[in-house]
């Protein structure tokens, strides 16, 4: 089937920018449909597991069955010809252990070997690998491997890591922490002394698995003749992955490694790391001189891919009786797992939470303690939102508690503390520079759109013995996006993600190819980057193609993460297209014999003064690429323009949002039902509002998962209890309602078109907004939400403990959450 004008179809004019008083654009700001869709709708997408490679062997890992122990022996299975077995000793001359570092005082590193050397530190850690002609055969052989492990005492929680008798997790460490620090900002003690109200609360956000539907996987092809490694993998940053591989592999430099990233089936941060599995696969391919494939199964993914959060938080707000926050104190204790992931480290969650806690509020006096504990669990690292969902949960839940204590409406309390519109650029207590924002109208929009007054009236009208109680809750966040080198340097990051690149090529027909350094895993870069190119050049979308994900093809850059691609890669496309257009003008001016300033651009042509024939791009391209004798003196032939965009401000463009949830809680069963969910978001000028809405909807679904369902569980022996998608529950059709979105467009002063990033915001507010709504519903019953996810069982147990009503008998089995009304 041919899509009706697929690549260039527009769903209808988007009037929002004109309404907001911003210039209307021809392509930017329109909900252009995605050219990416067609291949996926026909099953023709190509993911890493789909790449056919004749003769490729298959690898399966032998993983630790215990959380902590010393590997005494590993016995190989009986191998047939062509099969091979690998342990750490076999790879030590090819691969160095991964060591993730952070340039911050007190940070402790430890080697994370691609196959365990002596100790295993979490259940699921790779011990050995088997290579055979099929995955099934490799798994059979892996089952036959005999591993003798002498168990060691297990650290199964962050608190246990700091107990006096806890075993030391890594040699030479001064305690079981990756990092811990306390920092004080402003005149903290004086502000506390002035405060009239001091409110302390504790919360916990459970451990999560980012869980893209496509697991990890790679296909390594070492070509002995060329001495080159071709490494297909599903990752978010091809060049950075190549750099890491070159750093870890002994005897092969970057220029002999090509990383190719095909379609990526979701990532959400989990595919930013260099994994031991990837390194082992590359090393084994080099050793064997052949192609080897590893496609992870879901159990491996839930055992050993990067996990996130597990953040225990303590918050104290010091305020006056009007609700003005005078000082804020927060403590984050994160269970970082057994090893730091390269490159973000296991300190990323606690450090980020500490850094962003003040959010949209005018808080000048702040003390933060961040501790990242090392335990016998899977390593942790970045997952969509990083640190912010937990910070938002603690901050916003406590604001509602304060509002309740002071007898102020929660939205009014927030309004009293929001940063004023005229305070931008605003430097936060922790030194973040918010470029622009206009927060109070967003609060007004949320309150109006949620029908706040009607909810309060309905609560008033609820009978005292009613079984179902409704509640409303809000949660704010700011989202730092598109920040670059200086900002990452300040955080102590070893890799500084300073820019993104684009190479624009015009061919002789006047059509365009964009080669970009960012790497989509569903964000629709082939659409948005082409929209920006179309805007600058007037070339229609269906004459522009976008290439990404091949280090031999695309220019160097850092990839896709941290809500940065549209601003930075879009900025690079904008800049490179500007150079192309300038060149076309110069050539046209020469051919027309007029000054370049007298020319205008439009409809794929350069237009001269009235009465002259416009020169189509195809004609100008012909001159630049073929009839070069017609070029003006001093102008090089060719129409390729490479641009690396480093924003003039390195601290980022700040998006913001407020989430609002309305829930019904059944106090017999503890079941929570989402009645309404609203997002008011501001990411400046949107390039494609349809894609922005998609990012919000998808993010909110993950936020709802965190709020109500998702939880990686370990027992006291460090044995994982959630190793399938039947145990680790992702929200489905019945759990995610149709989320409403309201937009505001406060432009960034320094980015092209005033755009800001928006990839993560959707998943930040859910646990806090829903936690606040559930608490609001249960006011007067002695129950408040302190944990995410908040399950029916939690609510039921809390109601029982408070002596409030709850059904008799056993607590409900988990999970009992559904958005759907009973059938």
């Amino acid at each position, binding site marked *: *089937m041919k*899509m*009706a004008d*697929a690549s260039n*179809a527009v*769903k209808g004019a988007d009037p929002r920018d004109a309404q907001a008083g911003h210039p209307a654009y021809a392509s930017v700001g329109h909900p252009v*449909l*995605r050219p*990416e*869709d*067609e*291949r*996926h*709708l*026909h*099953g*023709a*997408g*190509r*993911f890493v*597991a*789909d790449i*056919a490679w004749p003769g490729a062997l298959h690898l399966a890992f032998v993983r630790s069955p215990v959380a902590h122990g010393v590997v005494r022996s590993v016995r190989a299975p009986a191998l047939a010809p062509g099969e091979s077995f690998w342990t750490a000793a076999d790879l030590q001359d090819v691969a160095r252990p991964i060591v993730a570092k952070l340039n911050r005082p007190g940070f402790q590193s430890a080697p994370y070997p691609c196959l365990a050397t002596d100790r295993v530190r979490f259940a699921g850690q790779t011990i050995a690998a088997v290579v055979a002609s099929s995955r*099934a055969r490799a798994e*059979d052989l892996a089952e036959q491997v005999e591993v003798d492990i002498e168990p060691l005492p297990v650290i199964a929680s962050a608190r246990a890591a700091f107990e006096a008798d806890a075993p030391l997790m890594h040699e030479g460490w001064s305690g079981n922490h990756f990092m811990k620090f306390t920092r004080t900002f402003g005149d903290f003690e004086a502000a506390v002394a002035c405060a009239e109200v001091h409110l302390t609360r504790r919360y916990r956000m459970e451990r999560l698995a980012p*869980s*893209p*539907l*496509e*697991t990890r996987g790679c296909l390594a092809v070492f070509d002995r003749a060329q001495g080159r490694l071709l490494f297909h993998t599903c990752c978010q940053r091809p060049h950075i992955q190549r750099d890491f591989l070159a750093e870890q592999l002994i005897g092969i430099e970057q220029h002999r490694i090509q990383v190719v990233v095909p*379609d*990526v*089936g*979701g990532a959400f941060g989990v595919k930013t790391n260099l994994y031991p599995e990837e390194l082992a696969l590359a090393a084994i391919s080099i050793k064997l001189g052949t192609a080897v494939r590893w496609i992870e*199964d*879901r159990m491996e993914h839930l055992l050993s891919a990067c996990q996130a959060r597990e953040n225990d938080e303590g918050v104290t707000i010091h305020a006056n009786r009007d609700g003005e926050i005078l000082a804020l104190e927060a403590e984050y204790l994160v269970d970082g797992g057994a090893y730091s992931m390269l490159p973000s480290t296991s300190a990323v969650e606690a450090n980020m939470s500490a850094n962003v806690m003040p959010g949209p509020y005018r808080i000048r006096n702040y003390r933060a303690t961040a501790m990242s504990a090392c335990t016998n669990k899977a390593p942790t690292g970045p997952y969509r939102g990083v640190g912010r969902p937990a910070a938002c949960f603690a901050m916003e839940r406590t604001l509602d508690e304060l509002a309740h204590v002071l007898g102020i409406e929660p939205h009014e309390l927030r309004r009293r503390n929001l940063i004023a519109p005229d305070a931008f650029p605003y430097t936060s207590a922790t030194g973040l520079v918010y470029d622009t924002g206009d927060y109070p109208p967003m609060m007004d929009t949320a309150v109006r759109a949620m029908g706040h007054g009607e909810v309060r009236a309905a609560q008033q009208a609820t009978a005292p013995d009613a079984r179902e109680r409704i509640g409303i809750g809000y949660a704010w966040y700011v989202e730092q996006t598109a920040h670059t080198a200086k900002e990452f340097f300040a955080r102590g990051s070893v890799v500084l993600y300073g820019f993104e690149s684009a190479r624009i090529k015009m061919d002789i027909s006047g059509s365009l190819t964009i080669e970009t350094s960012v790497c989509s*895993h*569903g964000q629709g870069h082939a659409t948005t980057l082409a929209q920006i190119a179309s805007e600058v050049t007037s070339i229609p979308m269906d004459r522009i193609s976008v290439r990404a994900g091949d280090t031999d093809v695309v220019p160097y850059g850092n990839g896709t993460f941290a809500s940065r691609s549209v601003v930075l890669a879009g900025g690079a496309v904008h800049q490179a297209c500007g150079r192309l257009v300038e060149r076309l003008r110069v050539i046209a001016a020469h051919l027309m014999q007029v000054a370049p300033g007298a020319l205008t651009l439009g409809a794929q042509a350069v237009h001269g003064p009235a009465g002259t024939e416009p020169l189509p791009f195809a004609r100008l391209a012909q001159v630049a690429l073929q009839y070069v004798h017609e070029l003006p003196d001093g102008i090089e032939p060719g129409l390729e323009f490479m641009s690396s965009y480093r924003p003039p401000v390195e601290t980022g463009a700040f998006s913001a949002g407020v989430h609002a949830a309305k829930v019904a809680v059944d106090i017999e069963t503890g079941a929570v039902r989402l009645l309404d969910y609203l997002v008011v978001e501001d990411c400046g000028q949107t390039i494609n509002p*349809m*894609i922005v*809405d*998609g990012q919000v*909807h*998808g*993010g*909110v*679904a*993950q936020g709802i998962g965190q709020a109500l369902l998702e939880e990686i569980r370990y027992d006291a022996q460090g044995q994982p209890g959630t190793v*399938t*998608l*039947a145990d680790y529950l*992702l929200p*489905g*059709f*019945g759990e*995610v309602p*149709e*989320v409403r979105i309201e937009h505001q467009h406060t432009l960034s002063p320094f980015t092209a078109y005033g755009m800001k990033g928006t990839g993560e915001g959707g998943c930040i507010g859910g646990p806090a907004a829903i936690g606040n709504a559930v608490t609001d519903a249960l006011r007067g019953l002695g129950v408040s939400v302190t944990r995410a996810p908040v399950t029916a069982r939690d609510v039921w147990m809390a109601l029982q403990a408070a002596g409030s009503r709850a059904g008799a008998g056993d607590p409900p089995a988990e999970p009992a959450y559904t958005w*759907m009304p009973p*059938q």
Partner: protein
Amino acid sequence: MNAPRDATIDLQLTVNGHEAKARVEARLSLCDLLRDSLHLTGTHAGCEHGVCGACTVLLDGQPVRACITLAAACDGRAVTTVEGLSGPLVDRLRAAFHAEHALQCGYCTPGMLVSAVDLLERKPGAEEDEIRRDMSGNLCRCTGYVGIVRAIRSCAQG
């Protein structure tokens, strides 16, 4: 039946309207047969134990999880994968998924389409609640389901 692990079975089945022959291990899944032997990689493995629905295909017109369906059980039967879906309803669904931004990374999309075709063939006038219930065997981690529900609803009659 206690077939030895290395027992092989000769199969003949119809895949997307074409006859296919294969000699398979008794334990081979339909998903692996389709992907590895027949090179129909549009059927995606997401969880390999029947939860996520990414591998959904039609077996004699009924949706099944290819990851937990044994290839050996498909002898003499007809399999339709995303590559073989065709007809006016499928065309409308594909166009609607595109128009409603019902996919981001595209990994769950083949399974979603197969389940949606089955749903609308059974319930041509499905309302939103029915769509959400009947599609609940398919997971998407990117879209929040909004676009998928809208796309299917837009193809339902009435």
